[in-house]
């Protein structure tokens, strides 16, 4: 069966009344949580996880797809009107979008962000529908040894590229790996790092870690360090519409943003920071209105917003086809799948094609619903920004605690949540990136499993790890990712010295 037919069947099952309602609910909740300042898509999805515990897998996944796109959509509204980007991907949007809002062009900025997200999301989901199965077909042949190499590359790129300091990224990863070790070892039953606590034998819940490191860590950090800083909402005049000139200036950046964002989502480049920055740079150098950049150029909103959305869809390719999350948000979605005992990866396309095609179809539907519902409703979302900060954080924190507790109705999870919250505070205070920790926690146990499997097959011969050409190529990449930034640094240092 080819992708196109499967996709049509996916649409057929996604278009049932109840699934559409779940999609609608997802877009609503996603936008709602995404609009709230300080909540990025990763936290938004993690916070909404408890709501889906009781619905059927396909409905839940449809809801997640909608929440995913909805949260990103809501996030751009906040960056434009409040200048407080909820996640790294919207930093650039805030840059130009907020300036546009100050010039009284909030409506046009919101519209180009929304329509750009829609265009990018639709194109990218289309490419996703046709590339993911191909990659999955190929990935079925990928052995355990190559998986080990693949995960090591994902680890090192995410740790190296995020944040300003490579070593802090790797330390964050190591802490995540430690958290992933806690519990009984699956093969031998050996209890590791449990210190005699029975509840710890089950391991540390990923959802608990994600919710607490983002929500509780942020609350502790903001409360104790940025108490006085308030927000200033820029009032929105008129409606969210674009003039003919705005359209003319926007459509090319949308396409270029998609072209930059999607491929960078597939490779583990560590989330949407790099593609949005790249897109901004490209638009700035191509634009005829260079002087406007920094003062509210619409291209500077259209391009990065499209790149951000295409990047998010791109990140779903390795997630669905390989079971390999490459960003914090993709990691949360992986956990959402696992809650339903579904393991994303190459086998999923053959074992559960109906589910995966329904999911892909609902990405299209969610994206369209967002555009239809949200542009007219933008005033309603803006009202949400007026919730006072004290109540907002109180709500986020208590909901995070509820999420941590409701997972297993266990107070052990709550103690873990508080401890991880403190870790989140320390990481923010000492400039450590958080995404590597989450990847380490989720992929660490998987890495160990594949590593052991590879060596069992080879009867303990370590040579198997680098036997295939793919592994060799991956280890070469790994070497470059770790060494290249240091070489560049060294060369710059030497140059600076010789110039003196």
């Amino acid at each position, binding site marked *: 069966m080819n992708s196109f037919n499967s996709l049509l069947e996916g649409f057929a099952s996604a278009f049932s009344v109840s699934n559409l309602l779940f999609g609608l609910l997802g877009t609503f909740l996603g936008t709602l949580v995404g609009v709230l300042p300080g909540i990025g898509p990763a936290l938004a999805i993690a916070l909404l996880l408890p709501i889906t515990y009781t619905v059927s897998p396909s409905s839940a996944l449809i809801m997640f797809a909608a929440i995913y796109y909805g949260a990103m959509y809501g996030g751009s509204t906040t960056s434009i009107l409040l200048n407080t980007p909820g996640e790294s991907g919207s930093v650039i949007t805030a840059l130009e979008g907020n300036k546009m809002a100050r010039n009284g062009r909030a409506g046009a900025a919101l519209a180009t962000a929304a329509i750009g997200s829609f265009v990018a999301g639709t194109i990218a989901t289309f490419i996703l529908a046709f590339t993911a199965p191909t990659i999955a077909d190929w990935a079925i042949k990928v052995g355990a040894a190559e998986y080990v190499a693949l995960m090591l590359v994902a680890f090192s790129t995410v740790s190296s590229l995020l944040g300003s300091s490579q070593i802090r990224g790797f330390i964050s990863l190591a802490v995540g790996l430690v958290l992933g070790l806690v519990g009984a070892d699956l093969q031998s039953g050996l*209890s590791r790092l449990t210190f005699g606590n029975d509840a710890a034998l089950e391991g540390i819940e990923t959802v608990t870690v994600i919710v607490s490191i983002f929500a509780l860590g942020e609350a502790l950090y903001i409360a104790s360090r940025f108490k006085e800083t308030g927000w200033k909402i820029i009032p929105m005049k008129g409606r969210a519409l674009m003039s003919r000139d705005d359209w003319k200036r926007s459509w090319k950046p949308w396409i270029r943003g998609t072209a930059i964002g999607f491929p960078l989502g597939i490779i583990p480049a560590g989330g949407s920071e790099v593609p949005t920055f790249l897109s901004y740079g490209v638009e700035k150098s191509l634009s005829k209105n260079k002087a406007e950049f920094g003062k509210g150029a619409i291209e500077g909103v259209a391009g990065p917003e499209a790149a951000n959305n295409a990047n998010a869809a791109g990140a779903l390719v390795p997630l669905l086809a390989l079971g390999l999350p490459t960003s914090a948000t993709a990691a949360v979605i992986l956990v959402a799948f696992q809650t339903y005992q579904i393991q994303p990866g190459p086998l999923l396309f053959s074992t559960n094609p109906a589910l995966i095609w329904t999911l892909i179809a609902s990405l299209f539907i969610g994206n369209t619903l967002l555009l239809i519902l949200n542009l007219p409703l933008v005033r309603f979302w803006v009202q949400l920004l007026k919730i006072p900060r004290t109540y907002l954080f109180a709500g986020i924190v208590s909901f995070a605690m509820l999420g941590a*507790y409701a997972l297993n109705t266990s107070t052990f999870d709550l103690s873990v949540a508080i401890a991880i919250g403190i870790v989140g505070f320390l990481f923010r205070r000492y400039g450590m990136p958080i995404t590597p920790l989450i990847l380490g926690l989720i992929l660490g146990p998987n890495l160990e499993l594949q590593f052991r499997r590879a060596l069992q097959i080879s009867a303990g011969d370590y040579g198997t790890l680098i036997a295939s050409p793919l592994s060799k190529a991956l280890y070469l990449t790994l070497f470059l990712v770790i060494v290249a930034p240091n070489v560049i640094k060294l060369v710059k240092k030497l140059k600076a010295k010789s110039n003196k």
Partner: protein
Amino acid sequence: MKFKPGAKSELTFVGSLFALGVLVFWDTWRTELPEINLTISPKLFPYIVSFMLMLLSSILFIQILRGDLATPEGLEPGDKIEKSDLRTFILVLASLFAYLLLIERGGFVIANSVTFVGISYSFGNKKLLKASGIAVLLSTIIYFSFTKFLHVALPAGIFKGLM
């Protein structure tokens, strides 16, 4: 030796990461292996992780000693690093512990309301009566929508039989 402001606390933080590495090493070393034949010992991976953590935190420790301090989130490199407000930090933490202690003894509505008001107060809200009203209302709505519509059981606590 003179330190830049903030260096001492960061050194303590990185030192505790090193200690975490030592802890992982010690825990792995002291546990006894079950008597089964495995190609790869379940101890290998923890050992690697503990060495990685100890090595990396030592390198970072030296970097900090040489003046390469972290930039706290939300600040630009070179910004003055202010001390965290310890009192507020403890207030937030206490609100979190209140939830942990109250959820099964007092029930969801009480735990959630206390935490809500506590956090709101930590963020500078002085109108405690209004905050309490909102907290109780919100908690009750959440309680009923979770137990009745989503079928996620939450502890009723002291209101058992009433709710």
